[in-house]
């Protein structure tokens, strides 16, 4: 069992303890980030039936790669990068699978989207309508106040591409939300 409260321990110290092999530290680390990662994955893939499996993969990758992380300050960006990669791979596999398997309603038995108020619903519909590489930037910025450099690193892109995609995404969102109003 973890002996230190997840809220109390400093993140850098926690990462260092986890890197030294402390399972308690790893458990606190996972518990601290699991909700944010699950929410991010859910927003990206739009299905809740795969959240647990994908989060599992993400944190297993985190554990196996943690010893190689040199700077604890970059942990959060690094973890979100893993999450983004796992979610995007899942979306890619899903698209590929759809190409080879004829569509039947039973293949898409996903949970009904949770009920939201109309503003959130408008926002959700607008997000669903934008390309994944723009959507991920909006979601990442809603998670944290990342810099353009960090966003570029997380999304395997360049700063200029991030700026341009973000500009287009914001314009699109503004347009959609204005149309709904």
């Amino acid at each position: 069992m973890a002996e230190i409260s997840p809220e109390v321990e400093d993140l850098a110290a926690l990462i260092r303890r986890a890197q030294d092999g402390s399972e308690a530290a790893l458990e606190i680390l996972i518990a601290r980030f699991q909700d944010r990662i699950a929410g991010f994955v859910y927003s990206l893939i739009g299905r809740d039936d795969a959240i647990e499996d994908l989060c599992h993969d993400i944190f297993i990758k985190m554990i196996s790669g943690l010893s190689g992380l040199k700077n604890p300050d970059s942990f959060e960006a690094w973890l979100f990068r893993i999450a983004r990669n796992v979610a995007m791979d899942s979306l890619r596999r899903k698209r590929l699978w759809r190409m080879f398997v004829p569509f039947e309603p039973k293949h898409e038995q996903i949970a009904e989207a949770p009920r939201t108020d109309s503003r959130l619903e408008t926002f959700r519909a607008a997000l669903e309508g934008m390309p994944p590489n723009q959507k991920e930037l909006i979601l990442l910025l809603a998670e944290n106040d990342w810099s353009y450099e960090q966003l570029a690193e997380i999304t395997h892109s360049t700063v200029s591409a991030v700026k341009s995609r973000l500009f287009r995404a914001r314009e699109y969102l503004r347009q959609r939300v204005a149309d709904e109003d």
Partner: protein
Amino acid sequence: MKIESQYVEHQRRHARAQLPPDFARRVIEEARQNAGVAGLALRLRLVAITGVLCVMGAMSMHWIQMQYTQQQNLQTWTTTAEQIRVLEESI
């Protein structure tokens, strides 16, 4: 609160409900099992590589030995053939 933040919070609340209460513990246990499997796989790989190297070593030794024996036989035969030729000429 901005709409993006509200949306993220809303998604997070829904996603949180999909994870079991002991999620972190399960992940750590699986990571531990994976490490055990990876260790076993590494040991098996080492055993397999050692086995292959031993077989290749034995085959190489056998080939070198064969070449040497063949060379020796050829030399012996050359000497014998020469002796036969000299004997035939003398007769």
